[in-house]
């Protein structure tokens, strides 16, 4: 998550950076069938909150909600191709983001500027298929190497 925040040094991500960690969690659960531990996500989130200066609990809640939805929304589990996966991720990410945003607005009693928020959501949703295809390519190459050897 430190890496994610440091992307802000690039002029393209001046206003906000994409949420790479949410893509990784989703792909770990749905694609690799591996669920990261709740405690690990909690600690990771707390550390991120400490370093980014957000109220403690925001990032942890975000990560745990992503995990919770990715594991438990049975309607979205029927996704085989990339398009369905993208729709499923979009639904999970936007729902989680809206919940966290709502809590943030309630806590601060103020509505933040929408531009960075929309940019954050947009770049994350654009990055998802790129990372997903990249992962598929890596799997394909490793399978090729295995079959040849």
């Amino acid at each position, binding site marked *: 998550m430190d*890496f994610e925040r440091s992307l802000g040094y690039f002029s393209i991500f001046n206003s906000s950076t994409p949420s790479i960690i949410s893509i990784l969690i989703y792909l770990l659960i749905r694609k690799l069938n591996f669920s990261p531990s709740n405690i690990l996500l909690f600690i990771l989130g707390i550390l991120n909150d400490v370093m980014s*200066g957000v109220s403690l609990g925001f990032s942890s809640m975000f990560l745990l909600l992503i995990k919770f939805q990715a594991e438990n929304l049975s309607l979205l589990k029927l996704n085989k191709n990339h398009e369905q996966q993208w729709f499923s991720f979009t639904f999970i990410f936007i729902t989680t983001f809206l919940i966290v945003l709502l809590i943030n607005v309630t806590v601060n009693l103020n509505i933040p500027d929408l531009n960075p928020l929309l940019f954050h959501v947009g770049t994350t949703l654009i990055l998802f298929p790129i990372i997903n295809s990249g992962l598929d390519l890596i799997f394909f190459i490793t399978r090729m190497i295995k079959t040849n050897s």
Partner: protein
Amino acid sequence: MVSGKPSNNRTIKEGRNFNFVLILLCLLLVFLGKLDLIAIRNIKSFLFDFWAPVTHVVNKPIKEIAVILEDVKSTSSLRQENIKLKNELRRLKSLNIQSESKELELLELRGLLNVLPKLKNEIVTGRVITAPGGIFANTVLINSGKNFGIQIGQPAISSFGLVGYVVNVGLKTSRILLLIDINSMIPIYLTSSNWPAVAQGQNGDLLEIKFLSSDAIPLEGETVETSGHGGRLPPGINVGKIIKSFSGKYYIKPSVDFQRMTYISILTNNQKINVNDKKFQGFAPLQNPKPSSIFKGIDSSGKRKIEREQD
């Protein structure tokens, strides 16, 4: 599903419940954090002191790559940049001559009016070790803390103007809340139209102007400085310039480029109001007007007098 491969339904249910409990705990933490408890503040200070070197190590290569990319990008426009800089230099030279004569005049006038001399600022400069990006918070860490006498509330500046103020201090690091953060509110003063107001961050690029008199008409492009009201920030620090949006609303564009900050200076001799002081009585609210008759039968608040006037 639990850590690793799925085992049985009971473990799945337990994992789900634990996940839910942790989400509720996070929610509790969020609201507890808003109470600004000293214990939570101290834990945060300890953690960011402890974790700062790791963040610095992770950020350093990415920052360097970003700088290289920016350099490569700027080489394509070097000629244009050179012409622009030459023009700027010419303009600044003429401005420098003007400001020198104005400064002499100002010093003479200060002497005539017996104006108290300004206190010399004591400055501690630290290197920025985290990127300011964040959708819910805009803060940065610098690598100097209590060991250099930094305290909560002290203003942070750069060569362009006000950056923000210190909100948390560790032993070797300090956290600075940037002007653009949604929790940042600073008293300002519009230098040309002479109106006081409050600038609030929006987690975006611009600052919102609040509590500006309805009679005020800000001038587009006028400079905004800190007013010093409340005693938290010293007066006269450059904040930014007024810009007008398409909707006709006025905003402040900060002078500081928050993405390009490498060093930040903290004004360590700024006199802060000590709320823990026993003599401190709190900020006095607006006083109720004393009843005095302006017109016969009507008091100063415009209400009719009920009691009988004395002869």
